[in-house]
């Protein structure tokens, strides 16, 4: 009898007559933001901005036409000279760069090579207002997970229409088959005296640009 059969047989025996009983799930929790939290669409975006900042990221609102300039300015301010971006990053986003070496991702780059870079620019899949969270799913403009894990600086562009109010709304929008990373602020650890300080893994600086439509 294989371990699998043993475990399954033990489960069935343990449950006995109760096996297969359905338990109704009361889903009375909130699936959307209350009117009090965010009366209008603009308030959802404002709540996201507030919560992202509380999580320790720098957050800025930019217009679609000012995005390239804003990205160039942010990279300059962070002194990021060599950056990486997913190969499918919209071309215009990096159009304003001066004296920055921007490289498109390629599978040849191993973690050590990524470690030698100053930063990464990506988009995101979904953002959650209530928790100030950005979700990356490896889809358009996001690239593989190592890109947003190894370099020490991450600039993430969030379109206002990607922001949802709550975790349930985000879960409903996301595809479970994709690898997801839910990021709430820059890298941190509380392992020393429960004090929040930059952690060992992930970018220690996170800039979030909210593009208003």
């Amino acid at each position, binding site marked *: 009898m294989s371990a699998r059969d043993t475990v399954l047989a033990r489960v069935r025996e343990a449950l*006995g007559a109760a096996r297969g009983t359905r338990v109704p799930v009361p889903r009375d929790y909130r699936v959307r933001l209350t009117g009090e939290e965010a009366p209008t669409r603009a308030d959802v975006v404002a709540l996201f901005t507030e919560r992202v900042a509380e999580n320790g990221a720098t957050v800025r609102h930019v217009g679609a036409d000012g995005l390239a300039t804003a990205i160039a300015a942010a990279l300059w301010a962070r002194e990021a000279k060599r950056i990486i971006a997913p190969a499918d990053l919209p071309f215009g986003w990096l159009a304003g760069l001066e004296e920055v070496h921007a490289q498109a991702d390629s599978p040849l780059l191993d973690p050590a090579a990524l470690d030698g870079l100053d930063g990464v620019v990506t988009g995101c899949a979904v953002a959650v207002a209530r928790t100030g969270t950005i979700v990356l799913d490896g889809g358009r403009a996001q690239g593989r997970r190592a890109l947003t894990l190894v370099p020490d600086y991450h600039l993430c562009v969030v379109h206002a229409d990607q922001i949802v109010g709550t975790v349930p709304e985000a879960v409903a929008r996301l595809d479970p088959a994709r690898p997801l990373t839910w990021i709430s602020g820059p890298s941190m650890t509380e392992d020393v005296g*429960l004090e929040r300080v930059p952690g060992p893994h992930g970018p220690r600086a996170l800039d979030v640009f909210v593009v208003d439509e």
Partner: protein
Amino acid sequence: MTLPSGDSSAGTSPSSSSGPGPVSGPGSGPVPLPMPRVPPRKFAAAARTALADTRLRRNLAAATAALRERRAAAAAEAGDWEELRAAGQAIKDGTLLNLDAHLLELERAVTAAGGTVHWAVDAAAARRVVTRLLRGTGETEVLTMRSPVLREIRLDEALARAGIAARPAGVADLVVGLDADDRPAHPLFPAMHRDPAQIRELFARRLPGAPADLPDDAGALAEAARIHLRGGALAARAAVCGAGLLVAETGTAVLFDSGGDGRVCPVLPETLITVAGIEEIVPTWEDLEVFLQLLPRSAAGRRMGAAVSTWTGVTPDDGPAAFHLVLLDNGRTSVLADEAGRAALRCVRCTACLDVCPVYERTGGDPYGPVHPGPIGAVLTPLMRGVEGAADASLPYASTLCGACADVCPVRIDLPDLLVHLRGKVIESRRRRPVPTPELAMMRALAWTLGDRRRYEAALRRGTRWARLLARGGRIRRLPGLLGKWTEARDVPAPPAESFRAWWRGRTGAGGRR
């Protein structure tokens, strides 16, 4: 079939037999069970070291107080906390009652997504599977992320036996690992019992490359750890981690840890091995919406973990090329068989019950043994391992039954009720022994004495006389013999010279004297 260092192929399901009886099946590399460095002790005896350490108690008290406050604020802010708890409870109850079907569904989904599922009946089998998989990769180093399950199966000791070096991913694991005598105090914050000054001292002595003039502020210490940990993580080609949750419907694993250090495990290495208990399942993707709200707020008092990862099998050109999921029983089916105790398997290992527990707050995690600390550990350990062993049987008594744990539990496990249930099981198991325990003998003697008025009054008279001889200043500070344990922490008032019965009889007999 005589392969001394046999790494001969074993399929998806390792042929490992259950229990201590039969010899391990062929093909599984011999990983002898390492002897524990100290034999398991009863809770009260094991707690003495911690209780005598005032610095540790001060650090634990400060940390648990901070976590309690944060958690209460996070739960209150949610606004729909009670509704989320009710949903969490119902989802887990439904999962457990259909566990066999969900396990098969999970196996199918993980396999379809390119992962491999292994089954382990006990800790030894899980150790064998993990070491065999690691040997198969040829790696001599492995990245590990702290997880209650990995501690439960004592993976570190098995890796050391197999000559594989474990490289921690998180700061706290590094801290605890640097001192051979240290034990994690908390599943999420293992170094919580050490203050920054102690960590500074430890780093200065033991951490390779740590600057001599390291200050004792959290930022500088985390930075020193960061440099060390990143080196290990970037070079790692294999990783072992736990999982917070598994989604049966989609085959998705969810890794949740307070800081987000674990996120390197499912991203950088070539091979990822995840060990998870069979109860860690939720049925559907939609169910995640409940636990992604309950868990972060219950675990570290945050709206969301700093980094939460989910993955389904393997993804081409992103992350590990091989994903192995080891599903562990190790006594969980025994818990499932206990109709009352079954509720304990709802546990999502958030640690909320630890930080509100007045016992845990003083002892830390070590005295609870390897399975899990705190009230939930005091319930799960004896349910999983039985109450025959003295150490396991002592755990249900490591509680004041104050009920704070039940109030904070995100899946509404009635922990005090289960502790009382287990105390009953301990008594029942002792009743079956050929030689009664002193407690049982005493209770039987008491039952005999109290069963008859004359016997009771005679005992009362004699007892009073002896007790008054022991008393000093109206109090008895130490009772003789085994009863002395009761007076270790309290005094007994001396009985009055005249019992109520004697007084009553005298009063009626003398027609209202006094």
